[in-house]
C-alpha cells in the first residue's frame, strides 16, 4: 500500500502528535512513518520549531524567587556544582603560582616512581638469587656435617678397636676363608683375661636379607654359639664371652642364628695358636 505522504502531512496528525493530542495508535504510526519518510520528519520538525519559536517569543518571566527555590530544592541532586566567582579567582591565582612547581613535582615523582619500580625489580631478583644460594649452602653444610659425623663415628670405632687390639691380653685369631671361599677373612680378638670375644669381619660378603653370620667357638670339637654378627657392625664388634675354645669359625645362618652350625655354609675357620 502506497502512503499518500502529502495527504498524511496535511491531515493534522503531526500537529496532534506534537501537541500531545494524538491517540496511542496515531503515535505509534507516526513514530514509524517518521523514520521511513523524510518529508514527514521534516514537516514535524518544522511544526515543532515554529511552535517553540512562538511560545518562546511570547514567554512570560516567572517570579525570580522560583529559580532559587528550585536550586535549593535540587541541591543534593547535582553532581557538578559550579565554583563561585570568588572561589574561582582564588583558585586561579593560586594555580598560577603552584603550576610550575606542580609540573616539576609531578615529573620528579614520575621519575622516582619509575626508578623505585626498577630498583624493586632489581632487588627482588637479587634477594631471590641470594635466597637460592643460601638454601643450597645450607643443604651442602648439612650433608658435609652428616658426612663428618660418619667419619667421626668411624674414627672413634677405629680408635676403640685399636685400643682393644693393642691390649697385651688380647689374643688374635685369624680366620681365613675355607676351601672355595679363600677370599674371605675374619679375625677374632679374644681377651684371655675377661674372655670377651671381639670379631673383625675383614672380608665377608654382604649377608643376604634373611641371613646372618654366626660365630662358633669350637670347644673340644663341639661348636658353641659365640654370637651373631649384627648388620650394624663396622669394625670390631663384641660378641659373646667364651671361657674356653680351641678354634673359631663363621657360618651363614638364617636370621636369628641356629643352635648348631650348617657346615656347608662355613665361610672362615681359624685355630687358636699356642
Amino acid at each position: 500500500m502506497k502512503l499518500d505522504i502529502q495527504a498524511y502531512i496535511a491531515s493534522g496528525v503531526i500537529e496532534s502528535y506534537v501537541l500531545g493530542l494524538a491517540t496511542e495508535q496515531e503515535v505509534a504510526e507516526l513514530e514509524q512513518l517518521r523514520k521511513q519518510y523524510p518529508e514527514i520528519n521534516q514537516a514535524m520538525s518544522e511544526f515543532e520549531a515554529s511552535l517553540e519559536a512562538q511560545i518562546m517569543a511570547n514567554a512570560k518571566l516567572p517570579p525570580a524567587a522560583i529559580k532559587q527555590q528550585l536550586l535549593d530544592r535540587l541541591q543534593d541532586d547535582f553532581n557538578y556544582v559550579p565554583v563561585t566567582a570568588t572561589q574561582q579567582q582564588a583558585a586561579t591565582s593560586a594555580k598560577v603560582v603552584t603550576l610550575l612547581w606542580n609540573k616539576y613535582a609531578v615529573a620528579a615523582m614520575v621519575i622516582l616512581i619509575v626508578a623505585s619500580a626498577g630498583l624493586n625489580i632489581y632487588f627482588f631478583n637479587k634477594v631471590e638469587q641470594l635466597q637460592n644460594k643460601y638454601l643450597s649452602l645450607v643443604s651442602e653444610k648439612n650433608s658435609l656435617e652428616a658426612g663428618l659425623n660418619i667419619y667421626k663415628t668411624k674414627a672413634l670405632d677405629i680408635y676403640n678397636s685399636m685400643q682393644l687390639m693393642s691390649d697385651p691380653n688380647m689374643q688374635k685369631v685369624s680366620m681365613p676363608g675355607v676351601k672355595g671361599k679363600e677370599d674371605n677373612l675374619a679375625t677374632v680378638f679374644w681377651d684371655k683375661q675377661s674372655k670377651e670375644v671381639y670379631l673383625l669381619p675383614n672380608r665377608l660378603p654382604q649377608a643376604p636379607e634373611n641371613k646372618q653370620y654366626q660365630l662358633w667357638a669350637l670347644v673340644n670339637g663341639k661348636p658353641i654359639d659365640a654370637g651373631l654378627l649384627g648388620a650394624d657392625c663396622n669394625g670390631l664388634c663384641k660378641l659373646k664371652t667364651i671361657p674356653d675354645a680351641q678354634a673359631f669359625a663363621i657360618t651363614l645362618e638364617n636370621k636369628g642364628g641356629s643352635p648348631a652350625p650348617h657346615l656347608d655354609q662355613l665361610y672362615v675357620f681359624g685355630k687358636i695358636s699356642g
Partner: protein
Amino acid sequence: MQEEKKYSEPELVMLLKQRHEVAFSYLYDNYSGALYSIVQNIVGDTELANDVLQEVFVKIWKQIAQYDDGKGRLFTWMLNIARNAAIDMVRSKGFQNSQQNRELQESVYEQAGTTSIAVEQIGLRKVVHKLKSEQKQLVELAYFEGYTQDEISKMLDIPLGTVKTRLRTALIQLRQMLKQY
C-alpha cells in the same frame, strides 16, 4: 549576565543527564518563561502557576533520562510535561475548591476560551485565540483543558468523527498561523 554560554540541545541534554547544575540553571533561564506561559494559559495567572512551574522543572530534572530525541525536540517534550502538570493541577481537588466561582465551571463549554483576557493574550493561547470560534473552542477543550475527543463529543453533542476532523482542521490552521514565527 551569563549570556555568553550557549548550549546546543544535545549538549544541554547530555549535561542535564550528567547532573550539572550549570545545565539546569541554563535550562531554567532559557525555558522558564516559555513554560510559565503555557502553565498560565492553563492554570491562570495565580500563585498556583508558580507551584506548577516548580513541579514542571523538578519533573524535567528527574525524568531527563527518559527524554528521547528520536521522538521530538527537547522543547516539545518539556512543553508536554508542563501542559500535563498544569492540567493535573486544574483537575485536582485543591484547585477546584480554590475556584470560588463554581458557576463558571457549569458554563465552561460555552464559555471555553473566554476566561481571562490576560491569560488569553499570552503564549500559545494568543495564537489559538485568533482561530475561528468553532475551532478555538475545540483546541481550548482538547489542548488547554485536556479533554479527550470522546469527552468533547459527548459534551458538545457532536459525533466523534466530526470532533476529530474539526480538531485536525483547527490544528492545520494553527500550523499556518505559527509559520510566521
